[in-house]
């Protein structure tokens, strides 16, 4: 059995490297992205093999799923050449071009892909480029060899923190050690990380309005599928959130499933009503970070330290923070997929 496992590990490792190489070297960007998504799914498999089911879930949902959706959406917008100069003011593609945007003809997509077929030379003359590439390959191989050697010389006993985590797990309020680390022992990292996510949204919104892709009507199948799937996705998100306290799962996995529901909904052409895209949307976006900060401040006022949960409340507080975080993560990721600030109502 162990031999079989070793063979499997070796094959998986090789497949990961091969897929990464193919994804990066593919002359067709679309193919590259699809291979990258496949790479993400194999990464999820690797996480399972490494006894890290929490990461496997996060990778499959965020690393492969949402990142893939973001990449594909960006590629689709990259192909449209009809909207030069967005940013200052919302620019809609001229009406006449709409058909083109809706149904990119075969010729269109082909030309868009063709443009990227020849990688731009690094330097003007080909010989210089070859020398540069050769030098690069040699130095990077040396880097890889050095790093590999450094990794292999590590002692085979990990001096990790498993024991201290296990010893304090009782007091953390949850029994899934990864959730305990994320929300309690190293909760401060998670607080800042929610800040990073929100900041990415600030940044994307500040870049201006991306021209809306006027999709063709998605058709009855997608419509029906989303109607069927979205309730399930929301249910699964709730389940992941709840189960995260004692088994693999948690706010990030739940949030990304919620985001998947949002992306699906957006794909069917649904847009947030302008009545809700001002204040209500903003409140939801900052809810995760906000609840985290409020809990932190209240705990300090009650005489504790930053994010020092009293053991009797720890479980409830973690669930509260995670619930708000799930909502915010889901909506933020879906908003990142949309790419620009939804238009706000007439009161602006």
């Amino acid at each position, binding site marked *: 059995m162990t031999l079989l496992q070793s063979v499997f590990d070796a094959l998986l490792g090789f497949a990961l490297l091969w897929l990464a190489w193919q994804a990066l070297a593919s002359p067709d960007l679309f193919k590259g992205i699809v291979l990258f998504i496949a790479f993400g799914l194999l990464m999820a498999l690797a996480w399972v093999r490494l006894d890290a089911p929490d990461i496997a879930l996060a990778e499959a949902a965020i690393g492969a799923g949402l990142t893939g959706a973001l990449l594909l959406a960006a590629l689709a917008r990259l192909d449209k050449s009809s909207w030069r100069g967005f940013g200052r003011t919302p620019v809609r593609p001229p009406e006449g071009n709409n058909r083109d945007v809706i149904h990119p003809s075969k010729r269109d997509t082909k030309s868009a892909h063709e443009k990227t077929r020849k990688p731009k030379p690094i330097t003007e003359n080909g010989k210089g480029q070859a020398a540069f590439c050769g030098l690069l390959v040699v130095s990077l191989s040396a880097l890889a060899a050095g790093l590999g050697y450094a990794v292999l010389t590590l002692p085979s006993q990990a001096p990790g923190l498993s024991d201290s985590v296990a010893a304090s797990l009782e007091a953390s309020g949850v029994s899934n050690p990864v959730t305990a680390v994320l929300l309690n022992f190293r909760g401060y990292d998670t607080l*800042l990380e929610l800040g990073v996510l929100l900041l990415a949204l600030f940044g994307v919104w500040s870049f201006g309005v991306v021209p809306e892709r006027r999709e063709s009507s998605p058709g009855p199948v997608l419509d029906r599928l989303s109607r069927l799937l979205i309730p399930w996705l929301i249910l699964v998100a709730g389940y992941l959130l709840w189960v995260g306290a004692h088994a693999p799962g948690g706010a990030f996995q739940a949030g990304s499933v919620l985001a998947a529901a949002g992306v699906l909904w957006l794909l069917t052409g649904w847009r947030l009503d302008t009545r809700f895209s001002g204040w209500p949307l903003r409140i939801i976006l900052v809810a995760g970070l906000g609840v985290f900060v409020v809990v932190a401040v209240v705990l300090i006022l009650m005489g504790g330290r930053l994010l020092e949960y009293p053991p009797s409340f720890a479980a409830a507080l973690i669930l509260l923070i995670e619930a708000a975080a799930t909502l915010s993560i889901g909506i933020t990721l879906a908003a990142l997929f949309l790419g620009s600030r939804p238009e706000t109502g007439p009161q602006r």
Partner: protein
Amino acid sequence: MSDIHWPVIVILLPLAGGVACFLWPRRSVLLGLLTALGVVACVAGLGGQVVEQGAQRYAVGGWGAPLGIDLYADGLSLLMLTVTAVVGLGISVYSSGYFERARYGQDRARHFWPVWLFLWTALNALFLSADIFNLYVTLELLGLAAVALVALAGGADAVSGAMRYLLVSLLGSLFYLLGVALLYHSFGSVDIAILAQRVEPSPAVWAAMGLMIVGLLLKTALFPLHFWLPSVHASAPAPVSALLSALVVKASFYILLRLWLEVFPFANAALAQLLGLLGAAAVFWGGFQALRQTRLKMLIAYSTVAQLGYLFLAFPLASITGWTGALYMLLSHAAAKTAMFMAAGNILYFGGHDRIADLDRVVQRLPLTITAFALAGISIMGLPPSGGFIAKWLLLETAIRSAQWWWGGVLILGGLLSAAWVFKVVGYAFTRSEVPHEARAVPATMEWTALLMAVLAILLGLFAPWLLALLEIGSPFGRENAG
């Protein structure tokens, strides 16, 4: 007073301020300025605490390292927080004028404040963190915020610059994170103090050191990894250029310094000499390029490359006085460079361009601005009684005392190069240009802030004993006798 959790407040206040600016975009200027004032007050509170009780360690969540994350404030972190607070307040006031009425519309202004306050959060969190993984998160927060701010300027240059900056920043972070991974798996902790106790040389530690140093040097833009800096710092909006040059590049230098002093004390002299040599090369290359530039902001950006080089001269000198000198250089450069970029911003605002040859009697039309530029120039050149002078004096003293006088030569030649470009700019400010330019009144707040920052850079020379005493709290540079 003593039991107030200042380290936490200093981090959470700008974060909350940023969220508030996002929720009430129409009040963002007011909220932003209030937050800035609040942060300055809280840093002062933290300062009082540190001066009174010595270095502070704060266990987040009550767990304590290695399980939890620790915050740590000693003289070094306090100094960094203080310079961030002072420069940050200046930039906030300046921006309230700049973004409100400049060609950036109301819309740009409302995007500026939340991102800027998050950037401030990242800086404060970074200077207080004692945990190398937490430092990675703060680095990412810092990097993404900086990129978003650069892109606010709009236009092909700024957007391309922001993109390049983002790629460089992410690359640097990943090098750093791989180093973190190797250190954690060698010693089972990511706390700097615990690592300092446990660390011993091994191939993995050498690899981690190499990765982290390269990643951080990339972010700090030490020659020859400075390639991304000039175009980014030149194309960003003026207050953003100021805070990138004054604070953001210093943040990664701060991490490098901490790691060098505590986690990698066995790093050998050859590496230190290499860093010193790169620093010297940066001083010459940056100074020489600055002299060649025709655009004012580009010139100032290249001067940042040169000034960053001085910070690395302390590595081969490796003594308390040397480190203090580098820190003082960092401090005075922050104030002076903020003033310079603000002055450049005023000139750009006034005339709509920053071509040095067409400055067109700016000296009569914007006297405060040109005074600010000249005063900041004095500090950059290192003339007495400015902060730059004190810094160079300390470095020179160490160089001579440790019989490595050639580093002193670098200091003096670098000063001459700076003098050359400062006089070039000031000279053009007096001449009349051939074509008259449209001109627009510059808000008084923008002129006065620039001047105040420049005056501060000069005054730093007079406060030196007090600030140097502050730096000794918790003895971040070790206790051995200098020299």
